[in-house]
């Protein structure tokens, strides 16, 4: 059952990724990116990693994409990059990317299929309660560090923009 969902959502994710690349207007690209991320979250859910799915939607789509949308609104002026969507290197880039993707697909395809060490049935270890208990037991310190990192990130962004203004 979940195999169909995975196939469906991964196809959807690929489509949305392609849409991000091909959309002329940045806003449309942003929205297709959001859709892409939701599909990924769905994939995580199918895999049983609910925590990650929630993080994905919560942090990434919620915070990052919203911030991206704001920036698009602020900066979006119809300049050269609007008429000429793709750079001159489009064709060779597509060919090379195709080559790389095909090579990856073939290589990964050849990876030896080893039976998972423990039965997939016990996949519920990643539900909220079990994961968050395990996570907080071992990684409480790293969690705090992450917050410090976020703080520095904000200050840096603010300083950068401030410094630029009177430049």
């Amino acid at each position, binding site marked *: 059952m979940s195999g169909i969902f995975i196939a469906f959502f991964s196809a959807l994710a690929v489509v949305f990724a392609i849409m991000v690349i091909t959309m002329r207007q940045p806003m449309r690209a942003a929205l297709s990116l959001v859709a892409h991320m939701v599909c990924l979250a769905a994939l995580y859910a199918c895999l049983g990693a609910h925590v990650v799915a929630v993080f994905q939607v919560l942090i990434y789509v919620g915070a990052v994409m919203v911030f991206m949308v704001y920036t698009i609104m602020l900066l979006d002026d119809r300049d050269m990059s609007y008429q000429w969507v793709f*750079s001159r*290197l489009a064709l*060779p*880039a597509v060919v*090379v*990317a195709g*080559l*790389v993707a095909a*090579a*990856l697909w*073939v*290589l990964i395809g*050849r990876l030896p299929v080893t039976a998972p060490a423990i039965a997939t049935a016990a996949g519920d270890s990643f539900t909220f309660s079990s994961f968050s208990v395990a996570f907080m037991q071992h990684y409480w310190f790293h969690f705090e560090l992450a917050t410090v990192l976020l703080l520095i990130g904000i200050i840096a962004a603010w300083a950068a923009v401030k410094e630029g203004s009177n430049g």
Partner: protein
Amino acid sequence: MNHLMLIPLLPLVGFLINGLIGSRLPRWLVSVIACGLPAAAFALTIGAFTLLRTTGTPIAETLFTWVGAADIKVDVALYFDQVSAVMCLVVTGVGTLIHIYSAGYMSHDKSFARYFAYLNLFLFFMLTLVLGKNLIMLFAGWEGVGLASYLLIGFWFEDREKTNAGLKAFVVNRVGDTGFVLAAFLIFYFTKTLDFQGINGYFAATQPSLLIMNTIGILLLFGACGKSAQIPLHVWLPDAMAGPTPVSALIHAATMVTAGVYLLSRMSGVFLHAPLAMDVVAWGGALTAFVGATMGITQYNIKKVLAYSTMSQIGYMFMACGLGAFDAGMFHLYTHALFKACLFLGAGAIIHALHGEEDMRKMGGLWRKIPLTFGTFLFASLALSGVPPFAGFFSKDEILWNAWSAPNGSPAIWAIGWIAAGMTAFYMTRAIIMTFFGESNVPEKVEAGIHEAPFSMASVLVILAALSLVGGFIGTRFTGFLSPVLGHPVAEGAAAGGMEHILMGASVAIAACGILLGCFLYLGKRTLVEKIRDAVGPIYRLVSNGYYFDAFYYKVVVRCVDWVSESVLAKVTETTFNFVAIELPSGGINMVSRLFSSLQTGNVQAYVLYVLLGLALILWWGVAHA
């Protein structure tokens, strides 16, 4: 008897003194040194000569080994035998007289010391040439003499004409010397020695092959032609008249040009076994004699007339050598040196009197103004024309007789010689009449200045004229003296005796009618001469331009080499080599470096693409191999 070394050394000392400090010495001291040392050398030569006549054994003297390696041993050695005695006497004797003459002639020239230094240098090299015991000593003298003639012809170097003449003389001589050097190498390959006695001895005993002998002969002839101005390489002699007249007298009449004859007689051992080479020498000589005489007739410059006459007389000497009569050749060389030197010095006196005028058309009626010069000039020209009592008659007749009677002689070659003798008489009479007789078309201001030659010049003229009168009579004793070295089977015989007298009469007859024809044409009817010249037209132009040898050499050889050097080598090959060796690699490297720098376009996305390309390549390599 080690004073043999002194003979060439004295002129060398003269050269060094005059050369180094000559300009600071007073003029009289310079001329004393310059004339004294050759005179001393002349005295020493006479001493050696008398010793040689009494003992009859050649004097040899080895100074030091010049070069010694396993496969070659050459030492600096002098050798004084009959042949080199004659040459030495001529060189030092006539040389000293000419030095005395030029003391007067060059008295008002500003680089007086330099002139005498070069003259002494010439004597030194000529004596090394004559006294050398092996081919290398002879070759050293040979090229040294070429250098001295180059320096002396181009003595007045302000005038580009004269330096060109000097350069031409040296290069043409050098062409001849190449032939000589090759002959020397070829000889050494067989005889393993460069010594004359060794060579003649070896070839007397064994002859490698006729082809080898003839090639050696021809190469030696080629070398001799270069130096003695024979047909193929004679172009430099008329131009060599650009030098001062005593130089022409010494170098281009008496000594240097006869070096070729000396070489042939020295190498008689080789030639006697090279029949083809002998014929070539004989006929070449006859041809040069004839051609020289014809060219002599058409010249107006008095020195050029004498130059062509020298060429033709040496043609006679070559003819004698070619016929095996080396001693007759040497005899003619000896008499020719005397009267030709006298002629040149006479011409010098005339030019001196007319303050540098050389063109006969601007002379005439001088015999009253400079009688002494006229007298000596007349004596010498009679000797040259072969009029009986004079020396020229004996030596030329000897050669003509050999032309008839020698084994490879023939009436044809005698006829050519005979006609050339007639033409010699004709052009000499023409020269005398145009300069001394007829109405004087000398410009007025020059006319006033005509004066007889000063004592030093006049005395030398008189001595030489006397010698050219007396010189002939020692004929038979002369050839006897030379016989040990150059002896050859003389075709004695009663019938021959009679024949000899007939030929002698014939040659006197041709000389007489040459003179009469000259007087008739030039004394009487000058207009007739013009008419004949117009009638003969193209032939006259051909002959007066020296059969276009000079033009041919210059246009074909010199211009072609210059063209090759200038346009082909300088422009084509040099640029291609520069291109291939320098521009191509540097250009290539520049191009490659530009290619790589074009990748750095500054477009960040391009860089990412390159990364992607690299990734793709690696992955696919992984796919291919894993």
